Each structure stands twice: as structure tokens, then as C-alpha cells.
């Protein structure tokens, strides 16, 4: 879907309050490549993802995409799956899918059932999100993003709350598919993603960072 797409970050810096979280962060991610962001709690992994999504502004530095499929702003090329699931407790899984597909302008009356199947949520289709388990909520939140294809995925702890079987059968499979389609995946994680060939951005507690080949 996205030949030659490139995400380019140049000398990004992030401050939280008075504290400098990281600086001089530069990288170029080409289509089909994945980056995992590791480091202790509070080093700025989530802040980095929010900056990349355009939900927060960097203290300095620039961020751009090259060869994007359209000239929309970066934030419209991005799916952001944060720590909050983006689900309404009062709405059922089916209603979530129906609302977001209408909101994104995709017709998915028939695709709704297929999506529920992809998410392994057929049994819970009519259960309000408020009473779903956290792993089920996580899958539903992810499914809402899958309704409309976007080339760049920013995932904050995607493996959290998922059981080992779902990590392997669901999350790893979807991430691998996104990369195979030529998308870009950036995920902060403490757990292996189960996908080969990823790069790793490791933050040290003092705010410095190194890039390496992910061994996970």
C-alpha cells in the first residue's frame, strides 16, 4: 500500500515539565520496517509515540514523512494505540465497530462480522465494553484501528493485557502483516513482539539512547 514511504525524525527533543526526557533523537524508518522502543518506566517512550502521532509537540526537532500516499498531515497517516483503549464502557463491541466504520467512512456492515472474527470476539459481540476483560478490550481497540488502513502504526505496550496465545496468534500476526504490506510499526514494549528483523531504540535512564538490532 505504501511503496517508498519513509518516516524521518530529526533531532527530536522532549521535555516534560522542566525535565528533559531525551534529545538529539534522529532516525529514518523505511517502509516495511519496525522499531521497538525500550527502556525503564518514565524515560519517554510514550511521550515519543505521542510526538510521532502529532498528539504532542516536541521541544525541538522536526518530523516528516516522505513519499506518503497522500498529502494529508502526518497524524492522518497514523494509528495510535495508547495506554487508554479508546472504548466507551456503555457501547458494545459491535456498536464500537459500527460507529468507527461510519466515522472513518468505510462501509462495513458485512465486514463487522469478519472483524469480530479477526478479533476473536464473536462471543462478546453484544457485551458492553465496560464488562469486557482487559485483553478483550485491547483487541477491540486494535480492531477499531484496523477498520481503516493507515501506513504508520504507533503502539504503546501492544502486548500488555494479552495472554500468550493472543500475543502470538493476534498481535504478532497483525504486526507482521502490516510490515509485509509496507507499513511502519513503532512499538514501545517490555515484551517480545514475536516478529523478526526489528530495530530497537533503547533509552538509558539518563536520557541517552542507542539504536541496535532488536534481539527480541
Amino acid at each position: 500500500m505504501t511503496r517508498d514511504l519513509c518516516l524521518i525524525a530529526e533531532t527530536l527533543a522532549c521535555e516534560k515539565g522542566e525535565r528533559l526526557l531525551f534529545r538529539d533523537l534522529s532516525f529514518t524508518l523505511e517502509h516495511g520496517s519496525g522499531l521497538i522502543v525500550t527502556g525503564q518506566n518514565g524515560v519517554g517512550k510514550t511521550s515519543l509515540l505521542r510526538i510521532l502521532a502529532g498528539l504532542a509537540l516536541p521541544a525541538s526537532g522536526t518530523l516528516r514523512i516522505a513519499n506518503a500516499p497522500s498529502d494529508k498531515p502526518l497524524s492522518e497517516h497514523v494509528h495510535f494505540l495508547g495506554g487508554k483503549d479508546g472504548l466507551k464502557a456503555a457501547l458494545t463491541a459491535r456498536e464500537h465497530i459500527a460507529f468507527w466504520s461510519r466515522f472513518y467512512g468505510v462501509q462495513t456492515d458485512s465486514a463487522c462480522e469478519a472483524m469480530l472474527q479477526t478479533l476473536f470476539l464473536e462471543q462478546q459481540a453484544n457485551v458492553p465494553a465496560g464488562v469486557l476483560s482487559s485483553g478483550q478490550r485491547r483487541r477491540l481497540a486494535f480492531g477499531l484501528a484496523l477498520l481503516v488502513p493507515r501506513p504508520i502504526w504507533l503502539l504503546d505496550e501492544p502486548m500488555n493485557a494479552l495472554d500468550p496465545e493472543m500475543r502470538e496468534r493476534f498481535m504478532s500476526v497483525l504486526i507482521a502483516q502490516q510490515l509485509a504490506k509496507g507499513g511502519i510499526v513503532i512499538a514501545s514494549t517490555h515484551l517480545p513482539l514475536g516478529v523478526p528483523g526489528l530495530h530497537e531504540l533503547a533509552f538509558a535512564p539518563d536520557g541517552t539512547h542507542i539504536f541496535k538490532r532488536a534481539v527480541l
Partner: protein
Amino acid sequence: MPLLSALSALVRRDLVIASRIGGGAELGIVFFLSLVAIVPFAIGPDQNTLARLAPAILWIAALLATLFGLDRLFQADEEDGVLDQFMLAEAPLELIVLAKCFAHWLTTGLPLALMTPLFGLMLNLPADAMLPLVATLAVGTPAITLIGAVGAAVTVSLRRGGLLMAVLVLPLAVPTLIFGVGAANAAIIGPTTFGTPFLLLLATTLSSLVICPLAAAAAIRLVRG
């Protein structure tokens, strides 16, 4: 038109949520009723005084009942992460704000305006003033929701932002209050015609319709940026 269907889906979603979690229309009306019911205890049972003050009382009650709970307009979506998704959506944030305001008005302002004749009876409101008062509230409450949305946007990340929002919003709602009560009074006691203040009320609503979604969206971006 995909944008229009996106926004109508959002309005429908907010109406469904309001009807399921409660605290929307019914509670607003009960709050309105309580305000109207306690005023005669404070002012006294003199029927002429009550009739003279009825438009002002009903308007202030409507103002407070609309603002009550409006601080949750964006906060609920902020807390569960939906606001992040809205900010990444193709639909402009300004129109998302407008759609949310419309849904809020449908569940608070509109029912209040429609219930006014009933509450007017409790305040000895003259029969021929019922319709003008309903008209002023129907036209004026959207402005209150829209102005309140700006306050709700500024306080979106504050957990106890309700009072602060009211303090920010009430001064801005003064023109709406003046022209709303003015039009209702003009219909009852004169001496001006109903039309002049009513058109000015309409003008405040129309300008809120343009300015407030822009201001609220800018505030959300600023507060969360």
C-alpha cells in the same frame, strides 16, 4: 458525503451513550425543576412578583441546568482515550466539537425548552408568555452549550474542572441571558417589541455557532499539545 455521515454517527453515538449512562436529559430536567421549585421559597408566594420574575428565573435555571454536567463534554472522551482518536481523525476537530455540542443540546437544552410551559405554571407565568419563552430558550440554549464547550475544552484535563468551567463561562453567557430574558419580558410586559431582543438573541447564537467550535478545538489542541 462521508464527513456528514461521520458527524451524524458521532451525534448518534453520543445520544446512545447519554441514554444508557443516564445523567442526561432526565437529570437535567429534574435539576431544572428543583431550581424552579425552590425559588418561590426564597422570593415568597406573591403571585404577581413570581409572574414578573418568571422569565428571569426560568432562564437562570436553564443556564445552570445546561452548564451542569457540561464539563464532562470532552472530559469523558479524554479519559478513555477517544479524544486522541478524534484528534487523529480526518474529520476536523472543529466539526467534531460542533457535533458533540449538537448532541448535548438535544439531550439538555431542547428538552428544557420544551418543558418550560409546565414549569412556567409553577411560577404563575401568563399563558400568552409561554410560547415566546419556549422560543427564546429553544434559540438561546444552543449558545449556552456552545459557549460552555469552550470552557469544557479549556478544563478538559482538570479532574475537578466543573466549577472553574462555570466561572469561565458565566460571564460569556451574559449577552445570551440579557437578550433571552429581554425578549421574554418584552412579550409579557413590553414596552419594546419581542422581535428586537429576539433577533439579537438569535445573533448571539449564530455567532457562537461560528466562533465557539473554533475556540474549543483550539483550546483542546493547546491544552493537550
